[in-house]
């Protein structure tokens, strides 16, 4: 049915809400196989995210001005915001993970906002990307937990404040919730971004019908505004959950 839909200009309602997520090579034929090193639209939009980050944080602050320029000020605000978040949520001893969390946070933030540009490609809408991000956090947190606390890290699962009889049950629940973390962590981000973009595409399809196109255009505008919020909030949620998990790893006692 997809191909039939692709039979260009059949008139009426034509929905391809998921086509925007297709990973395709930038150079060469569309149908070319995508191997791990192929330069694809993923490469392009991740590179743009890197460029945007470099532009904001490196070129924006190159004046090292005491009275900052506007660009430098934005960079400083993001720096201060993330730094304070790490310090407040994960604790003072988590500050050495600040560059790590800053990297994740800024990548997701910039990828989310770049994905909102029309005709762009939202890298964070892909479960492959968010899963790697979430697994990286999960592995980091688990390794840090064991390195810092040794077997005491397992105390995270053994709720010593609960009645003894309940503890094994709670331990199972805690264990499950611990291993579900990377799943929820990744699907929350990827799902939010994907759903928002797909909904906008669906409304864009409705805009082709004259009778409802004003409503569709208004809806797209409204949803775009909502997605602007979601892009920031999801990046923030990802970062703050990383901080929360990190706090668990550094201080496993409840």
């Amino acid at each position, binding site marked *: 049915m997809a*191909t039939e839909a692709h039979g260009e200009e059949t008139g009426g309602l034509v929905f391809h809400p998921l086509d925007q997520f*297709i990973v395709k090579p930038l150079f060469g034929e*569309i149908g070319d196989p995508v*191997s*791990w090193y192929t330069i*694809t639209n993923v490469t392009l939009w991740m590179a743009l995210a890197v460029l945007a980050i470099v532009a904001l944080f*490196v070129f924006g602050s190159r004046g090292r001005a*005491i009275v900052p320029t506007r660009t430098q000020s934005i960079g400083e605000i993001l720096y201060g915001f993330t730094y304070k978040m790490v310090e407040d949520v994960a604790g003072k001893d988590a500050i050495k993970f600040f560059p790590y969390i800053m*990297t994740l946070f800024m*990548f997701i933030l910039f990828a989310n906002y770049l994905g909102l540009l029309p005709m762009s490609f939202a890298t964070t809408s892909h479960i492959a990307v968010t899963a790697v991000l979430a697994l990286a956090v999960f592995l980091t947190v688990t390794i840090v937990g064991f390195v810092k606390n040794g077997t005491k890290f397992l105390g995270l699962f053994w709720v010593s404040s609960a009645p003894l009889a309940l503890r094994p049950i709670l331990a199972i629940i805690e264990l499950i919730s611990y291993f579900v973390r990377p799943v929820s962590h990744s699907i929350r981000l990827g799902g939010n971004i994907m759903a928002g973009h797909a909904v906008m595409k669906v409304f864009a399809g409705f805009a082709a019908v004259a009778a409802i196109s004003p409503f569709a255009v208004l809806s797209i505008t409204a949803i775009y505004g909502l997605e602007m919020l979601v892009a920031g909030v999801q990046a923030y949620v990802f970062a703050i959950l990383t901080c929360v998990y990190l706090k668990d790893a550094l201080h496993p006692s409840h």
Partner: protein
Amino acid sequence: MATEETEVAADAAHGAADAAHGAAEASGAGMPQLDFSTFGNQIFWLVVTLVVIHVVFTKIALPRIAGVLAERQGTITSDLAAAEELKQKAVDAEDAYKKALADARTEAQKIVADAKAEIQADLDAAQAKADAEIAAKTAESEKAITEIREGAADSAKEVAKDTVTAILSAMGFSADAKTVTSAVNDRAKG
């Protein structure tokens, strides 16, 4: 797979196959997110991206921003200290000014009081002198008046004696001068 075959057939009929979409459909059951053939690519580029961002942050951006923020904090602190110092100076200057003003006022009052006292002394001296002069003049005048008065009384007695003697002689009496004089003197007293 059946769908796939019908699609292929449809494609053949249309003569316009969209290979990319077909490929995505084939391996992703409709969702490009679940097209596992692109996972390697995405993960590879993601890792490259994260490493680049992390290097940029740790080597350049974060130390630089931290430096700028620390420097700004330092500047603000020292500026505040300088401001505090200047404020103290201003307060000191105001105190000195007020003190100078008070001193000047005291001095002015002193000068005024001195001048007043001096003038008073001069005035008192002048008054005393004038009073003395007036008293002297009054005494002198009184003396002159007394003299004149006495002179006038004597003249009147003389005239009276002469008149009395003349009248007595005209009436044919003669009186000695001594009796006349005592009679006139008695009359003048009374």
